[in-house]
């Protein structure tokens, strides 16, 4: 192995083998299996091989609204989280100075609480007798507790934004750190306002990180089935819930696989749209 040479398949192929095996065995293989199975049928809870587009037709016919709802709420959550994460990362980058490491660690510290603990904490906060409602009623802002705080799409958004924020901050902070200060200084010297400098000099350089942060948040949300069940209320069932039901209770793996592939396709379309939109809107000037 020669130091400093770029990676070569011929020379380093053996070293890449374990990673390739893990990717192939644990991701590509199962995905291909489910793609094939998605064309099968189920009879009396047992899979019957064949080639049938009926599962896809059923998903399009019966699960259109849940797919749209999942994409919509995923887009909202990923957008809000990415914007908030950019603001936090930007503040740490510009104002953090020698405390930036500590501030970054503090944001990551919230990950230590665990996902379910956060959900239960939010339930305590948002319930009819929760801290938020008690405070609002106590201050006279509302007369009755706000029922819609918990068991509603609002609660799903709040829980997932708070959970995903640290994951979105990391790529954005990394991108911001790679921007040289003199770029901003040049923009300001040329008369750009602080906002114009961020818009024209900083954001265009963060497009890959913005897309990464958005995609991370969006994909986690699109596949989630725990949060909607725990805090979502009567009309917040997402595709994750229906997919889980097919693989488990209904024992209809082919239909579940078809649901999965259509959800993945819709997710890729949303992420591609966001990527193109950001690339178009945030052109460097």
């Amino acid at each position, binding site marked *: 192995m020669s130091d400093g040479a770029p990676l070569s398949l011929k020379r380093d192929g053996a070293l890449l083998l374990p990673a390739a095996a893990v990717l192939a065995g644990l991701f590509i293989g199962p995905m291909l299996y489910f793609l094939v199975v998605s064309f099968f049928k189920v009879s009396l809870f047992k899979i019957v091989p064949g080639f049938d587009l009926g599962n896809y037709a059923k998903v399009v016919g019966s699960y259109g609204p849940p797919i749209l709802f999942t994409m919509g709420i995923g887009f909202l959550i990923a957008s809000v989280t990415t914007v908030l994460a950019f603001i936090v990362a930007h503040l740490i980058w510009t104002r953090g100075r020698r405390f930036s490491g500590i501030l970054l660690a503090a944001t990551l510290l919230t990950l230590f609480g665990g996902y379910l603990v956060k959900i239960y904490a939010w339930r305590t906060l948002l319930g*009819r007798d929760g801290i938020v409602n008690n405070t609002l009623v106590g201050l006279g802002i509302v007369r009755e507790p706000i029922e819609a705080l918990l068991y509603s799409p609002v609660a799903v958004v709040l829980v997932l934004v708070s959970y995903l924020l640290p994951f979105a901050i990391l790529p954005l902070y990394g991108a911001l750190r790679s921007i040289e200060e003199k770029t901003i200084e040049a923009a300001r010297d040329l008369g750009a306002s602080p906002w114009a400098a961020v818009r024209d000099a900083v954001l265009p350089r963060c497009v890959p990180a913005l897309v990464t942060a958005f995609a991370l948040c969006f994909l986690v949300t699109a596949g989630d089935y725990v949060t909607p069940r725990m805090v979502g209320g009567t009309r917040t069932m997402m595709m994750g819930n229906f997919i889980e039901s097919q693989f488990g209770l*209904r024992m209809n793996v082919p239909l579940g696989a078809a649901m999965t592939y259509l959800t993945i396709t819709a997710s890729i379309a949303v992420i591609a749209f966001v990527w193109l939109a950001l690339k178009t809107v945030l052109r460097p000037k």
Partner: protein
Amino acid sequence: MTNHQHNASKFASSLTVSRRHFMMGAAGLAAVAGFGIRPAAAARDVAFLGWEGYDLAFKSTDLLGKAGVNMQPTYISAIEDIITKLRGGGIGSIDLTTLIYQYVSFCGQSDLLGAIDESLVPNLSAMHPRVKALDKFLRVDDKLYGVPFTFSAIPLLYNPDLVEEPKSWLDLLKPEYKGKVVGYPDVMSMIVTWSKVANGLEDPSRMTREQLDKTVELMIKVKQNSRTIPSSLGEISDMFSRKEIVMGMGWEPMIKWAGDKGVNLKIASPKEGTFAYFDTVNIAKDAPNRELDHALINWGLSAENQKTFAEGNILGIVNQDAMKAVTDKTVAGIYHFDDLDAYFADKFLPGMFPLEQEGEFVTWDDVLGAFESYQRA
């Protein structure tokens, strides 16, 4: 050295493994993984999958200690979680499950359960006669796949300090209770209860398509009047305790759970009847500790343990001697151990939905599909 190479060298791997050494290592790993070189087999813990508290009914420290293993419980939030977990790779690692009686033959036929060797469970002879009548739900090809060990119901619970006693399940639809009622998390309880209300059938598991549609229509109305679709029984109890709801579908032990938090709950007797059920203990297919599992089941069915279970969990039991020995007034009052017929007088015990088409009746898969349309609505 070019500039590119200079930059790359900063990040060059410090690994100095030669291809030859790497291939030797890989070959060794393949040998271990592929040719079965593994540590000597160790005793495996008994994996329990069921409702929280049910594990204690079968957790004999003596039997487990002698076998040199522990019991590892995994708790469920809906009955269907058992099927999900067994289907999702649990076969071969799970020992005991606690399925509702209706699911037993279906899971036996689906190769999710192993048959129980009755000769290894002598305490079966102490079962109450009423329990023995359930046999038709528990056998496939004459082999036993589930042993009832407790019974209970999904009653209409209400808080008497906040509302008057409801007389019908339809009280859950009253506009004045909007956002203050709740349904139930599992499919079976919802479908059979609301089928009974919508169609008045003696056995709600024999429904036509039209009757199923009427049932789901009614369930959607309940959902629209509900605070949420609860994710677990604990959540229903918590909602009662926080006074977020005033009535709803519940479980008899919630009277104690909410009572411990200072909230008074009572059981109503709706005119349409209440869904009662027996829970069974089962041995999963290819369970790692089959022999020990039988011993634990037999231990759990003994009079002494059944009495402790009833009083500790506020649940019905099946051992006749244990019924006579229960002294806790709350438990004895709810379940009428001295006269089980009195307990079951306002209740119904439906069968299982057909797995295959049977004349005009909907199948279990139709029911599951209908339940999803209720969830989507």
